[in-house]
């Protein structure tokens, strides 16, 4: 479903040259949640943006459902629901207006938009604030609206970049529960997160990125064998401070 091959990206600012992503390869299948983990600045967000075709890679390519994002970015975008940590909301629109607008963008018929809105409102507990202006919503409510926005057109692939950033424990649990549900519905999901304990529960496979490089790629058992650590938190600390 998702195939990433040798993705590389270098940023240049004046004399400074930062290799944000270095020849990263991995894949994720339908019904699988791939946890792309790593410390801040590891290259997770850059990788996500390249997968979606928002950033052109210097080398390599990303393919979703047989379409390469560097060839047909719109074709890829149509199959993807994207939630980023920095995603905002339209503060002068109500949550319902914003979601309907995105339904329009994906050219969904009005009846289908309403049907999906009801469905998502119930699952993500949006009903009570659906008709409030987005500027009045809390961080958690905004993040849930963004998740609903990404799911509205029922894409087969989800790219979730820190979907629980700034959320409290309860708020993050709502999101993780829903991700679990999406997995069971057969969606292919790539998720970046710092909530390692919850990620360990929901992700099928993991990729550990550090300074733009893929250090480990595999399921939990494989990672445990490779690193000699029991859980993701220990693996992560080991990654940052190799003893």
């Amino acid at each position, binding site marked *: 479903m998702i195939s990433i091959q040798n993705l590389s990206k270098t940023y240049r600012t004046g004399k400074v040259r930062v290799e944000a992503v270095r020849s990263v390869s991995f894949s994720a299948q339908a019904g699988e949640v791939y946890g792309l983990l790593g410390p801040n600045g590891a290259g997770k967000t850059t990788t996500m943006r390249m997968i979606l075709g*928002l950033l052109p890679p210097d080398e390599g390519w990303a393919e979703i459902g047989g379409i390469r994002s560097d060839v047909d970015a719109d074709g890829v975008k149509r199959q993807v629901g994207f939630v980023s940590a920095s995603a905002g909301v339209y503060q002068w629109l109500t949550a319902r207006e914003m979601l309907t607008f995105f339904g329009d963008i*994906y050219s969904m018929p009005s009846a289908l938009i309403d049907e999906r809105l009801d469905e998502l409102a119930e699952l993500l507990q949006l009903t009570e604030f659906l008709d409030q202006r987005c500027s009045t919503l809390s961080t958690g409510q905004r993040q849930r609206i963004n998740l609903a926005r990404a799911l509205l057109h029922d*894409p087969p692939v989800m790219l979730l970049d820190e979907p629980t950033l700034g959320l409290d424990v309860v708020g993050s649990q709502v999101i993780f529960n829903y991700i679990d549900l999406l997995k069971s519905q057969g969606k292919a999901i790539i998720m970046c997160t710092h909530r390692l304990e919850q990620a360990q529960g929901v992700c099928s496979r993991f990729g550990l990125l550090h300074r733009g490089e893929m250090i480990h790629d595999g399921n939990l058992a494989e990672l445990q064998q490779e690193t000699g650590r029991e859980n993701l938190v220990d693996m992560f600390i080991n990654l940052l401070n190799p003893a």
Partner: protein
Amino acid sequence: MNQQPTSYNPVRPFSWWRLASKELRETLRDRRTIITLVLMPLLVYPILSLIFRTFLLSNAEALGAGQPLQYSIVCFSENGSQALANVLGPVGARMTQMDDQIRKENGQDNNVTAFSRSNVPLARFHEHQWQFLDDKSKAEMISVVESGQADVGLVVTPGSPQTGPLGTVQMFTRPDGRSQDAANYLRGRLNELTAYQNAQQLARAGLAPRPMLEFDNDVLMDSISGPSNSKAKSFSLASLVPLILVLMTITGAVYPAIDLTAGERERGTLETLMAAPIPRASILMSKFVAVLSVAVMTAMLNLVGMAATIWTFQLDQFLPGDASFTTLTMAKVLGLLVLFAAFFSAVLLAVTSYAKSFKEAQAYLVPIILLSLGPGLMAMFPGLELAGTLAITPMMNILLLARDVIENTVQVVPALVAISSTALYAGVAIWVAARTFGSSSMLYSNQGSVSELFQRPDGISRTLQPAAALGCMALLFPVNFVMIGVLGRLSTDTSADLAARFTIMGAFTVLAFVAIPYLIASHQRANLSEVFGLKMPRYVYLAIGLVLGLTLWPLVASLIEFYGRLGGEAAHAAWQKSLVAETSDLIGKIRKVSPVTIAIFLSLVPAFCEEFFFRGMLMRSLSRWRAATFAIAFSAVVFGLFHVLSNSVIALDRLLPTTMVGLVLGYLAWKSDSILPGVILHSFHNAVVVFLGYYQPRLQKFEWFPDESQSMPWTWVAVSGGCAAIAMLLLFRMKVDSGQEDERKLEVSR
């Protein structure tokens, strides 16, 4: 449980209008938009008009001290001063008689006989300031009016009083409001007198009606000093109204333009939008429609607010001549504002798309708004005509056209030129905005610090960073400005002065366009031959440069002439006359300078130095960052703009021809991968133009050589155009140096 989901298959195509309506809805809910949109026209105009009216009335009182307004009228007759007296004497006497009788019939007891359009009491006919010139010359009368010593000039030709009117009058006026008012007043009074006479005669004996005076066509002259300095000078509200409306339209467009680009980027909604399967151009168009709609709404509300204020406070009395503020006028002005709003909205979007935050966008827009005040204020100068360069100067052309619409003095050709050029600018600005908006480099670019510009690379580089070339360009602008200022202060009284001036000019040119770029490139450890394109090209390019250098000038001259004629034949003739007058003295002195000095300092030095910077440093570094077409076009426009500033004045008529020559030079430099063919083209082009003037007296002895006031012979244009076309075709068919193109692609891909 697992199933293979498929993406939603759209059943209807995406419509950017839906996107635009969302942008518009969001913008219109923002209270900051509402403040600019509604509160400004509601509050600002009444306050402004109160101040305006108070100022005008106090000013009028100070000027007139309650005295009736007097016009200054100068009269002349080719038949001598006695003939003048014979015609105007009876007219004046009859006018006084008529006024007295009308006052008597109406039971009035004052001396006031008429009121002006601005409701100012006018002096009685014989109490105006009459100047009767003797039979010296008509030219003297014209100069009296042109210099503003009189408001209107009358040339009187006696008729035959027994059979027809007493005489024929031709009025000479300036374009300003006061002169036009004076002419309208005179015509109105004389018509009034004719009507009175006819009524009297018919009442008495049933005689056939005949006017006392007949009118010949008016003559509109250029103003030398603007409107006369006599009392109660006319204030042209017709110039102020469009300026306020345009500034308000800009104000209306600024906030949504920033909010829908930099604001969205700051709030994180732009990335979400870019992650949706919509073409970038559609997103940009929807934003453009939203900004334009708000700008037009602001324009409409301001127009209505202003019209209501003008009507309520009776400010229309300050409109000159035939000016009016009817519904039709308002509709026309609104049409122009829509056009201007389209242009300015696109410019705003192109600029704000670069900004990462609201604050940064504001920082970018402040200089643009301040810059646009320049043409706005210039358009208020009385007597400015919508013609030639002014007809294609952004903003100024729309302001002058709107003024003409209000004054009912629109001329079709300049109006069409103004409208089509503004539409063209709007199209170009939208194109630029569409290319930059939402690109990954804009979406995720870092804000570089100033120190990065001065950082020195570690090793020798084959190319120069565009930032260094653009920084050099920014530095050269004030240097060029100072250079022009210094040269302007040097004496040109003698040919020795001129030779010294040329030498200093050459030194400045070398300093500005060679020394400074050289130092910057050296500092950046760039390979100088590569950066400036100094390698020897194939000889065929040198030959093409030579042919184009010898053949482009008639085409350029024709272009300048065509450009001048856009404003109408009369304006063109006046412009040509003034050009000949301005330059003939200078050319006379230049002819005494050695031709070698001329060749070095007016041909070779500027050609090499300007090619070194414009086609060398600027174009070559830009072509490694963007497409070659962009680099050629950008360097050509900058080349044109640098030539606009000449002799401390803005010579806008030089912009288009110089830019076009810049395009040819850029194309030649790109194809040949060297600036040397361009140096040949540039130096021969300069040499031909300068030496044609230099040797004109000798050349004029040949019959085939045109006089300086004549147009370029069409045979010259055809032959040179044909040769230039062949050279361009040959150039077009040549292949770009492959090494250069490969390297460019490599740079772009990085």
